[in-house]
């Protein structure tokens, strides 16, 4: 078993009585792209700042290659950070920005210039080397920020919502470049974001944080297909949730007894009958019809609204019991459906598409 590159052990951070980060245990492997995601105030940035040494943990350990680095001052750590606002040094040219860290580390001038030139070239900003950073576009500034950190050849690069300042188009382009760069370099990236699309498309593993704790840690597929809690399901979005009590019928069917009737599931896992459970069904697995009789789990609903999202449309439905259901349809299926808001429709799905939240068996999967 190889040693993880970066480990957090029982990490805590309190500000007065407010606990920003609670008992975080996390290990990041060398060469891994890890995304930390969560709503604002969940402690993701605080966790990142503790890795960089910008905040002192109240309790717990941070280890880099097995060495405890808690007490190492910021300037002695080798954990460069790409800042949300980039924090490029104004009054300095692109070259001076990129060479800054090498100067601080007293790298001799010839090597400094060689490494700087190499990274400017690599990130396609060599043509702007002598330009003031204030006179660059958003994408160019982003590249300078990356070059400034990567020129130090760190083992781990910390990124704090680095793409949030870019427009949508540029952000997607930079995502592609980041991923390619990370693969080529084999450097560990720890990437904090509030955006699912960034986290899911970039990361090897995703950490979902809520109220200072880790809610779920897994591959993007794991989290998307098997959210572990209501919070994760709601945060990831596009998931309908039903609560009820786990029950097996005389005919051998297993499901949860909810306000919307018995909703069958395929895999009962090891949860016991009688436990309260939440059932999650992804929007793309829900079928919407105007006539009943299409599926095992079928709930009559009212069509509340449509939400246009390009090739697909999200339909917001509500059952008689008041449960909200979201179903995702292709444009052409919506045309075939020809239903209007306020109309009665039927939402159905296969038992195998229902995921029990918080069931013990699911932990083995993650």
């Amino acid at each position, binding site marked *: 078993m190889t040693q993880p590159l970066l480990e957090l052990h029982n990490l805590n951070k309190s500000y007065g009585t407010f606990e920003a980060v609670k008992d975080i245990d996390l290990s990041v492997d060398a060469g891994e792209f890890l995304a930390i995601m969560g709503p604002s105030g969940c402690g993701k940035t605080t966790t990142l700042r503790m890795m*960089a040494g*910008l905040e002192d943990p109240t309790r717990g350990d941070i280890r880099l290659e097995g060495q405890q680095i808690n007490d190492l*001052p*910021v*300037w*002695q750590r080798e*954990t*460069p*950070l790409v*800042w949300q*606002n980039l*924090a490029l*040094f*104004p*009054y300095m040219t692109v070259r001076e920005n990129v060479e*800054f*860290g090498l100067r*601080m*580390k007293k790298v001799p001038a010839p090597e400094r210039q060689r490494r700087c030139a190499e990274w400017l070239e690599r990130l396609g900003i060599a043509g702007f080397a002598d330009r003031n950073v*204030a*006179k*660059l*576009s*958003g994408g160019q500034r982003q590249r300078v920020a990356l070059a*400034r*950190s990567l020129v*130090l050849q760190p083992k781990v690069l910390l990124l704090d919502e680095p793409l949030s300042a870019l427009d949508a188009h540029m952000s997607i382009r930079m995502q592609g470049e980041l991923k390619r760069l990370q693969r080529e370099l084999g450097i560990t990236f720890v990437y904090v974001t509030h955006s699912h699309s960034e986290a899911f498309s970039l990361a090897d593993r995703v950490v979902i944080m809520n109220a200072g704790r880790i809610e779920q840690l897994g591959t993007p597929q794991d989290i998307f297909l098997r959210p572990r809690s209501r919070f994760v399901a709601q945060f990831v979005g596009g998931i309908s949730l039903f609560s009820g009590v786990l029950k097996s019928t005389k005919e051998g069917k297993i499901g949860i007894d909810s306000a919307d009737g018995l909703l069958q599931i395929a895999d009962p896992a090891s949860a016991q009958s009688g436990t309260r459970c939440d059932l999650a069904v992804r929007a793309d697995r829900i079928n919407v019809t105007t006539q009943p009789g299409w599926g095992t789990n079928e709930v009559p609903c009212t069509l509340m609204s449509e939400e246009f999202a390009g090739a697909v449309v999200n339909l917001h439905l509500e059952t008689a019991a008041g449960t909200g259901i979201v179903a995702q349809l292709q444009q052409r299926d919506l045309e075939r459906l020809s239903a209007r808001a306020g109309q009665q429709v039927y939402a159905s799905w296969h038992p195998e598409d229902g995921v029990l939240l918080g069931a013990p068996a699911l932990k083995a999967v993650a």
Partner: protein
Amino acid sequence: MNSHLKHALPAWVWFTGLMLVFVILYAPILSALVFSFSADRFPSLDITRFSTKWYAQVFADARALEALKNSLTIALSTALVATTLGFAAAYADFRFRFFGQRMVLALALLPPTVPIVVLSLAMLAFFSRIGLSGTVGSIILAHVVVATPFAMAICRLRLEQMPQEYETAAQNLGATPGQALRLIVLPHAAPAIGAAALITFAVSLDEYAIAWFVGGLEQTVPVTVLNTLQGQVDPTIHVIGTLAFAATLSLVFAAQLLMLRSTKSHKNKEVSP
């Protein structure tokens, strides 16, 4: 930018009002300038001849030159010390969070609000007790007390425009706190430091009451002016007044220019995509 907004009163009212304010402010100074070039012994409007003899007289007056030397020494020392202290205080307030911070800030900004006569008397009492009164050093110390808050206020304004991340980013890239201060914070604050030096220099150069109280026989230019006036109306007063006004005006103007240029460059930076 808001030129399309209509004011409550017509433009000529504003314009006349503004002109009136300027006339009241600057007419006496202008008159000093005019009379300083008049050959007449007493200021009156039927000026008979243009002359620079009063200027010649001032520059030949040993007492005036001594006062000028004192004033410049004091102003320069005050500018150096007050700007250093003011920047240090502003930086501490910007960079650190500590217990009683607001209190410290309020106390640091207080001296200019104390009535000048009260401050002067207190200074005199204090300096004579420790045996410093009547020296150039005591005037410098007293002027530092009055000028530092100005320097601090100017530096704070500039530091507040700097994102905290710049300094931490430098440290994150391996700069020690000292290097980050020198390489990142100081270049950013340089225009404000320059402006603070000019303003504190001007504050000291113009200050009369404290210098009169604690200076004893060591006279600065404003004190000399007043002492001269107490005896008789001397036309050289107009010369000194004009020169003092010109000096102060250039100092304040230069300081304004520095601050304006730095905020402009700051704004340009924010606008760029």
